[in-house]
């Protein structure tokens, strides 16, 4: 069996392993070939050794598992590849934002006090999310029955919003036309959603008109 032929068998084995989506045994790989061109087990094993070598430095590697061989994305590349599957960050609920705003402007404040102002209970999830994000922390306990925790904002909160101190928070009195700002934010959010969905083109792409145009706009993307 000459070099060219071995290279061909190797390409076919690689192609099959990439197309199969599951491990293939040595026998399954051999059965890709009609009888009179079928490589022996020894040749197939040799080819797989060569394939393994040929994957050095690439994005994937040959792994032997119980049911055969499979090509697998290199583990050390997982941090990058994992970003493909990251869920899109969701938006925070209005309740969470109100709670955060009240903690920022009225700190130190207890959950009960937030509930008094909001007129509804504050779910533990909201408090937990804010604590986990390290935007708020417990700075003490109020000396009343139940000794409720008092919350305040953190340095991370200031950093996130690019503030050096709470006194840089915009005073409410200065913000006259909040409704206008609200509309603007809504528009931005809408814009983002549309942008995201048109970016997502692969799944469904309602933003694009006629197919030709879709093809053209794609061209400009690259």
């Amino acid at each position, binding site marked *: 069996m000459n070099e060219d032929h071995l290279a061909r068998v190797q390409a076919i084995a690689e192609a099959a392993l990439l197309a199969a*989506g599951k491990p293939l045994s040595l026998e399954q790989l051999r059965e890709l070939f009609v009888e009179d061109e079928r490589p022996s087990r020894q040749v197939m094993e040799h080819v797989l050794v060569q394939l393994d070598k040929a994957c050095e430095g690439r994005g994937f590697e040959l792994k032997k598992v119980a049911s055969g061989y499979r090509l697998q994305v290199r583990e050390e590349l997982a941090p990058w590849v994992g970003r493909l599957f990251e869920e899109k960050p969701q938006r925070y609920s209005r309740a969470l934002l109100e709670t955060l705003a009240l903690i920022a402007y009225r700190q130190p404040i207890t959950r009960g006090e937030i509930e008094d102002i909001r007129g509804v209970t504050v779910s533990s999830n909201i408090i937990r999310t804010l604590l986990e994000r390290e935007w708020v922390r417990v700075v003490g306990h109020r000396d009343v029955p139940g000794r409720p925790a008092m919350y305040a904002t953190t340095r991370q909160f200031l950093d996130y919003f690019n503030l050096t101190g709470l006194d840089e928070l915009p005073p409410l009195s200065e913000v006259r036309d909040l409704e206008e700002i609200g509309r603007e934010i809504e528009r931005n959010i809408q814009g983002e959603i549309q942008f995201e969905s048109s970016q997502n083109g692969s799944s469904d792409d309602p933003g694009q008109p006629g197919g030709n145009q879709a093809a053209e706009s794609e061209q400009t993307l690259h």
Partner: protein
Amino acid sequence: MTDETDELTHAPAEAGAQVPLALVSGKPLVDIPKDLYIPPDALAVFLEAFEGPLDLLLYLIRRQNMNILDIDVSEITRQYMDYIGAVEAMRFELAAEYLVMAATLAEIKSRMLLPRHETDDDEELDPRAELIRRLQQYERFKKAAEDIDEMPRMERDIFAASAALPKLPSSQPHPEVDMRELLLALHGVLKRADLFTSHHVEKERLSTRERMSHILSVLQGDRFVTFESLFTIEEGRLGVVVTFLATLELVKEQLIEIVQAEVLGPIHVRARAAS
């Protein structure tokens, strides 16, 4: 591949052995006897092979080695009517389009028989023109469909390459928040609570409240801290004032207590809740 519908699963039967007959170019693969005796089974198969009257007409034209542009309407109409007649005689359900086409052909044929007026634009008056145009249009897309079928496609000629995944880090990215969203939320809640007009939230008060939080966090646990240690000289006079205001506010809100063991002795501060 999992969401195959009837249309897809029926495809092999429809597009299988019978199709070549419809793809004929000059030499039909299924020979229809000249005397038009067609066994019932064969007729059913025969009709299924066509995508409608235009397809059948194209087949008849091809079988006669006719140029579309030069259709012998009389001959084509005769053959077409023969098929339609045979189908009806067999009591097969016949799609309405076939009957409409039969009527169209009959009309063209009759108009062809009428004496023609002398005009300078013959083609416009050719009663076959519309039929020819439709046949030509249909033929183009029939060909295009065949071309598309020949194109390399996924799952037949192209297989996506994929590799198994290693263990991936699971991280949920945090939502982004805009400062204005925060303000808007506050605006909403204060408006609902009817606190908006009471000016509880003032610019200068915020630094005081921040300092209150800071002092409280310094006073974590059951420990006394000297009053002076709350102040930082480097902050200057304004810092001292803010700290002092914050301390007073904390005392007022009964969050801290201030203890002085003896007159002029050191002042200590601790969180009330700790006691």
